[in-house]
């Protein structure tokens, strides 16, 4: 058995598509709907829901006045403290009358970025982030959400052949809010939980997942391209030479970003999932974590300001407690079945720094189980763990799997990524 066999064993064959799925795909191919892939249609649906939720009719104050209000105010967010990961940190802050538009916030960030003094390049471009994902846990009687934290600390070598270092570490799971903590204690304060593994492959395994941090995973190897960032759209490695050649004219930069998004293995692939505007926002957020010149960084913010569908949420604190403006934008996010969320970025217009991105729940759901193979019955509140009887692909009908409810609510932070460091460094980060 060689490593290719091991890959096949790691990613085993999945059950075939159901008759319904096959029939629906076949029908769609030859119906009038065929021109719009499902991913694009559902993205539009989600966006409508966001507009309903955020459709508060906030008066928009654009232009120079708003920018100065915002620059003055952004240092002192009104929200206090830093609630636990699952909490709501939105704040009405400056009041509706003074609420600047998303465009004004982003243009202010563009102005600040352009004024920044360029820093000298180091050996490594270091990007350190921490991400939070909600892990649904507990029983029917005591449902709760745990916030799982993972840290990434990447040092990309500027010169090909030099060692780069990529570190990621699971930092453990803790109750997301004080209410979740109470339910967790009522459940006996478990330090591990059962988690279904590889449900997707049709062979069920309920394994125990520790809520404790794990050892860091470290990848240190010579840099292949001397890349300091990656384009989101086509996955191209971006070197400092390439980044330095980026246009600082927003229209030209936008055109270049569209080329990245549209690059499709030289004509083989199809259009990107989601709208071009959504993809441009994703690319912009990615580029803001790369070593850009002040002029190009300013242009990225100007491209973002030109994208439709963004709204200000007011002053917010990011998960590290830093103040900035929250901007709800049209983006794709994957939440469990039945739930919908809003993508949000937090930017500090006075420094021109992107601080964090979040997904905030707009439509809470109840269930969490997805991708159950045919014949498997979810058991509310944690059922019998599938035993040897339930082996098979797909498992025989009647096999039960644990099923939890969670405590999702509107406004809950479902996931976030906070950018702690995006700067040049001359030493590799510790593991």
């Amino acid at each position: 058995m060689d490593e290719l066999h091991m890959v096949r064993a790691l990613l085993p064959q999945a059950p075939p598509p159901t008759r319904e799925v096959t029939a629906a795909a076949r029908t769609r191919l030859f119906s009038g709907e065929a021109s719009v892939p499902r991913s694009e249609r559902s993205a539009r649906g989600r966006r409508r829901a966001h507009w309903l939720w955020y459709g508060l009719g906030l008066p928009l104050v654009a232009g120079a006045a708003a920018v100065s209000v915002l620059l003055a105010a952004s240092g002192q967010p009104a929200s206090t403290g830093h609630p636990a990961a699952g909490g709501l940190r939105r704040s009405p802050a400056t009041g509706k009358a003074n609420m600047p538009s998303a465009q004004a916030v982003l243009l202010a960030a563009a102005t600040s970025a352009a004024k920044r003094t360029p820093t000298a390049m180091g050996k490594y471009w270091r990007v350190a982030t921490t991400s939070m994902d909600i892990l649904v846990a507990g029983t029917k009687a005591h449902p709760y959400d745990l916030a799982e934290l993972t840290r990434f600390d990447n040092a990309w070598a500027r010169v090909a052949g030099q060692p780069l270092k990529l570190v990621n570490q699971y930092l453990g799971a803790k109750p997301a809010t004080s209410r979740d903590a109470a339910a967790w204690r009522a459940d006996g304060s478990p330090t591990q939980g059962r988690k279904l593994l590889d449900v997707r492959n049709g062979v069920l395994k309920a394994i125990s997942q520790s809520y404790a941090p794990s050892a860091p995973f470290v990848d240190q190897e010579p840099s292949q391209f001397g890349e300091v960032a990656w384009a989101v759209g086509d996955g191209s490695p971006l070197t400092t030479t390439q980044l330095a050649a980026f246009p600082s004219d927003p229209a030209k930069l936008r055109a270049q970003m569209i080329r990245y998004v549209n690059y499709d293995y030289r004509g083989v692939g199809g259009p990107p999932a989601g709208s071009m505007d959504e993809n441009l926002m994703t690319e912009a957020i990615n580029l803001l974590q790369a070593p850009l010149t002040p002029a190009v960084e300013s242009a990225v913010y100007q491209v973002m300001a030109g994208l439709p569908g963004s709204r200000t949420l007011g002053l917010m604190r990011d998960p590290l407690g830093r103040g900035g403006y929250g901007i709800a934008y049209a983006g794709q996010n994957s939440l469990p079945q039945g739930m919908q969320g809003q993508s949000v970025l937090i930017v500090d217009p006075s420094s021109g720094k992107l601080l964090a991105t979040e997904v905030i729940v707009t439509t809470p759901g109840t269930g969490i189980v997805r991708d159950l193979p045919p014949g498997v019955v979810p058991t509310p509140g944690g059922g019998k763990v599938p035993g040897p009887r339930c082996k098979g692909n797909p498992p025989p009908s009647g096999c039960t799997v644990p099923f939890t409810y969670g405590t999702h609510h509107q406004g809950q932070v479902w996931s976030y990524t906070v950018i702690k460091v995006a700067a040049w460094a001359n030493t590799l980060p510790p593991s």
Partner: protein
Amino acid sequence: MVAGQSDGAEPPPHEQYIGRSMDAPEVFAVVFDRHFHEIHGYVARRLGTSAADDIAADTFLIAYRKRASYDASAGSVRAWLYGIATRQISRHRRDEMRTYRAMRRAAGSPLAPEHAADHTELVADRVTALTARRDLAAALAALSPGDRDVLLLVALAGLSHAEVAVALRIPYGTVGSRLSRARKKLRAALGAHHPAA
């Protein structure tokens, strides 16, 4: 583009259906029926069944839309479809990374007593297997997207080097170099777990 003419009772070669479907869309149904399950299966192995339902359907929609750009002389329909599917999968790289991360995390956790009780005789083997799984998942996640695409098209889809070259539209030689680089990294990551070690 092959015109797709066939004479008499001899069924036209499969690749020619695509050419004909430009004028007769229902002919594309043959392509769908022959390949949907296979493409779905490949996507499901990388991203899960639920994602595969959408991505496989989108792959055929895109293929249908782009059927005019299909060049039968360049390679098989199958390789062409895998190329489109791979491009769609690349839009879900974050989900794929999440899966590998979950595998690593899950494999690194201690076995639960009740779980072990179900498989007493297997526990020792499973601990070893789980460690190998974790290392393999980590190594797969650490591959560059291009290397991973080549590796999985070979390992999971069973495409030949020539077919991978067509699917990804990369030079034939690049397929070999990407594959050997990816395999080398996997072997290094597996270390003691590698069967050959």
